[in-house]
């Protein structure tokens, strides 16, 4: 039972990491004209 719980924890963590990568992908979408150069 504990083994299943541990493995579920691993699956959840990596699912969250993949969602985090998706979030980064969204953040990378550079809006036209945006520039932070001073």
């Amino acid at each position, binding site marked *: 039972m504990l083994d299943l719980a541990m493995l579920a924890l691993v699956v959840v963590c990596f699912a969250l990491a993949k969602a985090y990568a998706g979030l*980064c992908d969204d953040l*990378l979408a550079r809006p036209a004209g945006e520039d932070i150069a001073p």
Partner: protein
Amino acid sequence: MTSIGWLQIALLAATVGLLTRPLGGYLARVYAGEHTLLRPLIGSVEAALYRLAGVTPEAEQTWYQYTVSFLIFHALGIVSLYALLRLQSVLPLNPQDLTGVAPDLALNTAVSFVTNSSWQSYGGETTLSYASQMAGITVQSFLSAASGIAVAIALIRGFARRRSPTIGNFWVDLTRGTLYVLLPICVIAALLLVAQGVPQTLAPSAEVTTPEGGPQTIARGPVATQEAIKLLSGDGGGFFNTNSAHPFENPTPLTNLAELVLIFALGAALTNCFGRMVGSERQGWILLTVMAILFGCGVGGLYSSEAGSNPALATLNAGQTTSAQQPAGNMEGKEVRFGIAGSALFAEVSTASSDGAVNSMHDSFLPLSGGILLANMMVDEVIVGAPGSGLFGMLLFCIVAVFLAGLMVGRTPEYVGKKIGSPEIKMTILALICVPAATLGLSAVASAVEPGLAGLGNAGPHGYSEILYAYTSATATNGSAFAGLSANSPFYNLTLALAMFVGRFLVIVPVLAVAGSLAAQPVIPRSTGTLPTDGALYVCFLLGVIVIVGALTYLPALALGPIVESLQILGSLR
């Protein structure tokens, strides 16, 4: 401090410096897929592995595909290592009949070695079978290092490429790093270690009778092969509980120096590889210079601190000066074979590099020395660092530095020909902020709840330092410990596993995103508005950014631990 002590430090610096250029050139050729001396020997093995895995080496990946491959590979690594540890009692190569590892400890250990952390809440010789050590720990040491280098190479490609939608192929980079870089060096290193007396055997522990007539069990096993990759990979997880303080892991002064060189070699060489791939070796030397200055400050401070006497012991008239019976300085927790200099140097290299191997007990260092060890890890393992993670950590600081310089002096924020824009800054800050958030947040929780306090070996500020060190080490994927903390409990096993997960994956995902964003850009020609990043001024600026970002983030936590403990010792003398 002695001249022999300084000579050891100089010898290490010189050896690493001499290896940097040839090894950096070799790395650049390996990851570009160019001809190397080993290609005729290993090329067919590499091709066979690609065929077996269904990988087309010419098919490159976008940063997102690269990241997903990276995550899948590591998820499988954790699950397989977890299963191996749990099932070791029914698997072969278990001459000591060790039982399966408990679930929480197995998860902690699996995450630890897959993330290149090597935090060990267990004693290797009494917990893990030979199968677990060889097929689990050693294999993951190879793979975690190869994947770390792969990420660094992907980021370098981001800087080097022009308008490219791809940053390489994760499976190819992983395979090349393992076959062409890690394996050949480890074969040579393992042979050297065996020649110096490190065991390499599948025989069970030796049962002997001591000179007093009592029984003694002497643990041994396939140590040399694990030792070689433990150091080269920046992993640091020892075969024995006492790690490189054990005479079977580190038997002679020569192995001590060789182990230090192995820890630093790849991290330093990757700076040269970076310079070559972006078309200016000077850029690589600049990064290595910054690393060397930080390392020099750390080792100088550590050596002088430990070579001085412990002021609390001085009041008790305890002898702390050089005599026929003892060397001078704080010898508590140190191996007499290595002394103050060898211990201070190893501790500095280990915490600066993210390796985490130890040849002395860091918990016994004087408070300010402990603070230096903490600070090394708190600057995001940029002082050479583990293979790959040191370089990409340093490149993140380079991005912040040119951005801040752009704001301060009106220069265009660009680095090695790539414009640093809003997307790159967002990703860089994400990568840099998650480590202190996890470190400080989890340290605060552990300092406040009963399961966290239950593991403490000391009360007061030193106890807090033990907790802070554990989470700092975990998020920095370092793995060394203030041994006073009893971390083999469900609370620490799970929270430290979380810290290692955050420190590895929540950093690497945005790093790869930066790589993808940069690779898609054109190269901007250098202009009068470009901040020069290949001179002394930039070295100073980058140093300032690293120190200020690290210091401002962690200073309050350091003040509560090592700084207040040091003041307490001084106050008690009045």
